[in-house]
């Protein structure tokens, strides 16, 4: 488990230090833009897409132009965002471990 965590941290550190490759960036953009197209193929996910945007302060235009904005992202921007936001001090890690405490039945 500690090894897994260290490996994950190393990947984050690598992105912060060196950013991402053009290949990785292009692949990710393609996937994100494809997700937007695929979402239009499903009325429920389309509604959710717009609903989530509108209830969190974005506009219909933001959703419409989202693929263009994804397309415009540069590798430097990704690295800068990683530096700003992927800060270990604000991270939370959850562990699913074998329970050793007495069982209490809970009802929802």
């Amino acid at each position: 488990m500690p090894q897994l965590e260290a490996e994950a941290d190393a990947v984050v550190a690598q992105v912060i230090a060196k950013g991402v490759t053009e290949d990785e960036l292009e692949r990710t953009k393609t996937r994100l833009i494809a997700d937007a197209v695929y979402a239009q193929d499903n009325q429920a996910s389309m509604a959710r897409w717009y609903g989530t945007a509108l209830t969190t302060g974005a506009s219909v235009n933001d959703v419409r132009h989202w693929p263009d904005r994804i397309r415009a992202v540069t590798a430097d921007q990704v690295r800068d965002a990683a530096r700003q936001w992927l800060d270990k001090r604000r991270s939370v890690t959850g562990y699913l471990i074998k329970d050793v405490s007495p069982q209490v039945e809970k009802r929802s």
Partner: protein
Amino acid sequence: MTRLVASILCAAFAVIAGAGAASAMTIEKIVSPSGIEAWLVREKAVPLVTLNYAFHGGATQDEANKSGTANLAADLLDEGAGDLDGKTFHERLESHAIELGFQVGRDYIHGSLRSLNEYRDEAFDLLRLALSSPRFDADAIERIRRQELAGLQRDTTNPNDLASRRWWQTAFPDHPYGRETRGTLETLPRVTADDLRSYVRRVFARNELKISIVGDIDARTAGALIDRAFGALPAKNDLKSVANATPSGLGRRIVINVDVPQAVVTFGGQGIARQDPDFMAAYIVNHILGGGSFSSRLYREVREKRGLAYGVSDSLVWFRSAALVLGGTATRADRTADALAVIEQEIKRMADGGPTPDELAAAKSFLKGSYALTLDTSGKIATQLTQIQIDNLGIDYIQRRGALIDAVTIDDAKRVASRLYGGGMLVTVAGRPKGLTSSESTE
């Protein structure tokens, strides 16, 4: 009338959503230059193409002592093909956002493909490689086999799997349908690369291939893509025949002891063939008894009135060589016997008296109105079209379906209810159900 209302509603959805997946659709039969037939729905709203197809020859083609062969082969089709090793193949899919999937059933292996229009040539090329030259590299086989074995190991303590597996083994002893599609901890290690190659060689052929395409694509382009992916496959498959079968063990109850707080119940009996003239009546009657809705008799009696289970349902299941009615529930160990008694009582009440005219009318209305809602993505439409082809229902089935439902009378429903539920059920229970034992000694 209801069908008309349904299609108008869907058209409205389509306009609002900007997606036309469920709007009134035209299904076109096309033939590729090399002579492969497919059904096509042109849907111009979204720039993508969705493909669904099925080859006859699923897990029934496994050797009895090597069950899981077809499933393992399907798992490995995208783990390296042609010149591309598994990693490269996955990168090619991912970098073009191409979604490629394979699923093995008892009678068929199903495949799906979804791609943006701009990458569809690449998508169909990768599909051709996966179908005609999968590599089955030794390291890939072992990696995927370990994954499958880990899953099978988990299943040995999963009451759902225990109840279900025992049901199938008991219902179809010495028949391919009795074997688990994913194989077992004993059979899967025996499967060799040659077995996987042999499966692909025997099954992936053009003669019993059903193809459906939905998307922003014209007939000519679709035909060319079909040939690109399937054109080089052998003309004819080489399948082991599968005997017709009826489920055994009806009237038996088998309890599998496993230390879990909830008991899982699987029940089922003889169903009705898809081509049987009474199929639609049976479909409606089963919907009233235990179809997925919150108003079925089983749901009302087991859950709503008595709180014995969170869910309970049953459905018609049909194969090429057998037909079943199959259902299940999960209950508290100390109330399993009660739940089972209620289920058996409701099955008998339906067999004896059939549905009421009100229930029949409500079920008809629901089944007609909800159908379009199940066809709300191009993937679901393509899957349904492939199933309609497999079931040989005709290209106009979606148009005819409403009238077929309307034609079912209360007398039909009563007659079919007696036929469907009068024959007894095989019941398997996995857990520690209090006061419930096997009807004959097992473990």
